């Protein structure tokens, strides 16, 4: 575990948050509207604190706490909160509970995390959008690969599908919007790139990111505890491998 990963970064008291409704059974805690590493860390830390409270049997009626890039989605059962707080709307009751939890977060230590190298094949059929990415970023394919691999980057969140990580931020040169029309099927292990971030598809899924390569690693195994290879707060480094190495690691016949 590196020093960087174990660093404790207290949340500055001056920074505020907002509670927004996402329908009648989910509240979103908004730490920022634009991405910043600090806002992401606050989302990671706040959800970790809420998960700890849940593990202690508290926060009855909150069913899921979902950290995202700069927000945390708190899914709840309005009925449970209506019974507990008959004088408040369920939304206001949840907001009050979360406000108290956030006050207690000032000294929350950063959850210990891990660093992991991710082998990626950036060749041929495994990298169908590499040329498109290179054109869009005004780089050569090998410049794109060099920019994408070699550096440690943060796992910002897990979402969209089981074990599906969002990784970033890559250098500004790798900035391009997602595809206007998502693909209906993206192959398992595909590494997608958009907006200076990467994702890895843990299974065959629909997806709108540009596919830069593919990893032979399994991102999600339901029987494992935890089932996810990566979680928010981890760091990864992409390591280029050849198609032959990919096929050997993935158990694919050449």
């Amino acid at each position, binding site marked *: 575990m590196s020093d960087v990963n174990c660093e404790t970064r207290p949340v500055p008291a001056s920074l505020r948050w907002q509670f*927004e*409704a*996402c*329908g*009648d*059974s*989910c509240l*979103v805690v908004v730490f920022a509207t*634009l*991405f910043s590493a600090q806002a992401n860390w606050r989302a990671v830390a706040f*959800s970790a604190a809420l*998960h700890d409270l849940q593990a202690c049997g508290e926060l009855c009626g909150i*069913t*899921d*706490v*979902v*950290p*995202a*890039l*700069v*927000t*945390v*989605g708190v*899914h709840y*059962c*309005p*009925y449970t909160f*209506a019974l507990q707080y008959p004088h408040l*709307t*369920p*939304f206001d009751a949840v907001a009050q509970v979360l406000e108290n939890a956030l006050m207690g977060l000032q000294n929350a230590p950063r959850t210990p995390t891990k660093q992991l190298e991710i082998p990626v094949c950036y060749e041929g059929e495994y990298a169908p959008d590499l040329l498109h990415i290179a054109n869009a970023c005004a780089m050569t394919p090998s410049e794109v690969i060099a920019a994408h691999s070699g550096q440690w980057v943060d796992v910002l*969140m*897990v*979402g*969209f*599908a*089981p*074990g*599906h990580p*969002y990784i970033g931020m890559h250098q500004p040169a790798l900035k391009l*919007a*997602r595809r*206007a*029309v*998502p693909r209906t099927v993206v192959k398992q292990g595909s590494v997608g790139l958009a*907006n200076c971030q990467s994702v890895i598809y*843990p*299974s065959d*899924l629909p997806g*709108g990111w540009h596919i830069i390569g593919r990893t032979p690693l399994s991102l*999600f195994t*339901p029987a494992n505890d*935890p*089932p*996810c290879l990566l*979680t*928010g707060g981890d760091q990864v480094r992409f390591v280029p491998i050849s198609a032959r190495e990919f096929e050997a690691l993935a158990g694919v016949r050449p």
Partner: protein
Amino acid sequence: MTIKVIRPGLFSSFQDSGRTGFQHWGVPVNGAMDQDAHALANLLVGNPTRAASLEITLQGPVLCFQAKALIALAGADLGARLDGVVLKPGHALCVKPGAVLSFEKREYGVQAYLAVSGGYLLQPVMNSASTYSRGGFGGLCGRALKAGDVIPICSSFANPPRVNIPAGWLLNPSASAVSIRVLHGREWHDFSASARHDLLNEPYRMTAASDRMGYRLEGAALDLTQPRQLLSESVTFGTVQVPAGGQPIVLMADRQTTGGYPRIAQVASVDLPKLAQLMPGDEIRFSLIDLPTAQALLVARMGRLKKLEAAHS
């Protein structure tokens, strides 16, 4: 004690009240598309509402009971027959070993729920028996039923409980256009005035490219006042998101945990069961309600369900 699957039907999968508590790993909630009908099927046979039921979509399976069982169907009327005799949703009855449940002509609705007293014996994955077919876990082998499957059940000699189903709980054959109440989505104000007007005044049609993950709708295109690349965050059952093409998608039971498309609206939870029973081609009309109203409606509905559950457990 088993049920043998002679024919699987179009898409029959085990579902329960959902796989909550694991969304931070990206694990979808899954669960029954029509939670009301799922709960009712369970109550009719004396099960807790969280027990798994078999969600039967559009074309039903042919099932042979190898043991005595108390069963009930709720939700859509997909033309069920027990040994050839019509079996309507909303009633429990005892079946004998060797009895065959089959489905003929669909009458109304899309999702039917088959509950068995004592429940199906399924290995829970992350605390839930719900099938996540895209992820290949939960339910029976992580997939929809196949011919030849053998479903383990608890044999039951119980008599059906007397369930007084409240008015309006049984699905009715729907009118031409279904009215669905929505709340403002997180990006409501980023949509153009005409988009906000159109969503609430123009008809939208459910397309064939719809499944348990989401309903793709077709209607007046919904545009933003200016293009936006949003940061991914939580979405829920009923989130109405709008990709660049402008045609809305309503996220359903197998939805992703987070998404990055602008969200114009959010279907009120009380109207999700109605949405779950629509067919591709059906027309939807959206109307707007506020958060306190949506929550009051949901709390009242859950209160009625809890009362019903308490009376029969």
